[in-house]
C-alpha cells in the first residue's frame, strides 16, 4: 500500500467523519483499486450525503466499472446539491459525448468551463465536441495529436491511445515509448499486420470474429480492439494497471473512438 494511502486510511480511521475519504477514494480509484474506492466513497456518502464532491467521486468510480447509467444518476444528484460543480459537469459532458449526445455534452462542458475557465482538459474537450457538433471533423483531424484529445476524459488521458486505419495510418491518438519518443507511425504499421493476423487466426481456427487482444510484458500491457471494421485501437498502459482494469479502460476508449469515427462520417 502506498504511503499516502496508508496515511489517509489512518486519518479516516482516527476520524471517520473526515472528508479525507474523498482524496482516499480518488487515490484508490487512480490505482485501479475500484472495489476499495467504491467502498470508501459509499461509506463517505453515508456520512456526508450533502457532499457534491463525494457524489462526483462515486460517479467516476461507477464509470470506471462501466455502470454509466448509475453514474449519470449520481452526478445528477450532485447537481441538485451544487448546480455549478465543475467535476460533475465535466463528467456528464464526457459521458454524453461518449453516447453521441453532443448537445448535452456541450451544455455540461460549457458549464464546467464557466466554473473553471483555466481547465485545459475542458477547453480541449469542448473543441472536440463543438467540431463534431458543427460537422467540421477536419478541425479535429488536422493534427493526429490534437485528435488525441478525444480521449482526454479517460483515465490516463490520450497518452498511449492510438487509433489506426486498415492501411496502417494514424487516425488519432499518440503513443510514446518508455524513453518518451513518439512511435505512433511505427506502431500503426505493425497494428494493421497484427489485426490481419488475428483475423486469420480466428478464421482458420473457426473461432469467429476476433474482438480484442492483450499482450502483457514486463514493462507494460497492450490492449487492441476494433472500434469499427478496418480500424484498430491500441491502449498502452504500464504494468501497474491490471489486465481486468485494462479491459475496462479499453472498452471506454473503444466507445469514444467509435463515436468519433461515426462523427467523421457525418
Amino acid at each position: 500500500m502506498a504511503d499516502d494511502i496508508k496515511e489517509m486510511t489512518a486519518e479516516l480511521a482516527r476520524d471517520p467523519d473526515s472528508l479525507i475519504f474523498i482524496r482516499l477514494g480518488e487515490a484508490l480509484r487512480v490505482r485501479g483499486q475500484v472495489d476499495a474506492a467504491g467502498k470508501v466513497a459509499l461509506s463517505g456518502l453515508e456520512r456526508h450525503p450533502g457532499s457534491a464532491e463525494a457524489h462526483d467521486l462515486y460517479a467516476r468510480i461507477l464509470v470506471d466499472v462501466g455502470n454509466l447509467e448509475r453514474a449519470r444518476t449520481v452526478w445528477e444528484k450532485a447537481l441538485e446539491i451544487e448546480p455549478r460543480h465543475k467535476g460533475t459537469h465535466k463528467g456528464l459532458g464526457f459521458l454524453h459525448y461518449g453516447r453521441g449526445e453532443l448537445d448535452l455534452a456541450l451544455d455540461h462542458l460549457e458549464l464546467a468551463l464557466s466554473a473553471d475557465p483555466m481547465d485545459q482538459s475542458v477547453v480541449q474537450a469542448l473543441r472536440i465536441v463543438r467540431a463534431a457538433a458543427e460537422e467540421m471533423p477536419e478541425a479535429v483531424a488536422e493534427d493526429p495529436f490534437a485528435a488525441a484529445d478525444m480521449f482526454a476524459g479517460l483515465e490516463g488521458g490520450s497518452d498511449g491511445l492510438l487509433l489506426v486505419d486498415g492501411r496502417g495510418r494514424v487516425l488519432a491518438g499518440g503513443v510514446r515509448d518508455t524513453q518518451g519518443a513518439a512511435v505512433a507511425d511505427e506502431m500503426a504499421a505493425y497494428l494493421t499486420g497484427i489485426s490481419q493476423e488475428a483475423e486469420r487466426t480466428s478464421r482458420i481456427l473457426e473461432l469467429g470474429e476476433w474482438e480484442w487482444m492483450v499482450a502483457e510484458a514486463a514493462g507494460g500491457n497492450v490492449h487492441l480492439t476494433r472500434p469499427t471494421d478496418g480500424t484498430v485501437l491500441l491502449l498502452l498502459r504500464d504494468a501497474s494497471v491490471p489486465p481486468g482494469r485494462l479491459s475496462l479502460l479499453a472498452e471506454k476508449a473503444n466507445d469514444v473512438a467509435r463515436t468519433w469515427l461515426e462523427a467523421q462520417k457525418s
Partner: protein
Amino acid sequence: MTDRFRAILDSITRVRGVQGAALVAREDGVVVADALVEGVRGNAVAALTASLVKRLGDVTGTAGIGEPEFLHLQSRGGVVLAVPATQEIIVVAVADADVNVGLLRLEMLRAAGTVA
C-alpha cells in the same frame, strides 16, 4: 510425445473449457508437442500463434516495454492464449470463449516455468 511434455500439457487441458494445448517452436511455428481435441488443427495453431507472438513482440518492443510474456486473443467463439516459455518454445492453449482465463493463465505460466 515424452511423458514430461504430456504432463505439462495435461495440467493445462485439465482446465474446464480448454480444447487443447500445445508446445510450439517459436522460430518456425511448428508443433513440438500437442494435446488438442479432434478438429483443432495443431499445425495451424502453432504457425498462427508463433506469428502473432512475433508481431506483438514488435509492438511491445517498439513501446519499450519488453517481450510479451502472455498473449490473449479473444474471439466470439473462443480464445487463444500463449505464453513464450523460452526463446525457443511457446506454450499455447485454445479454449472456449468463456473459459476461466485467470485459472488457465496460471496453469500456462506454471507450465512455461516447467518447460524453461
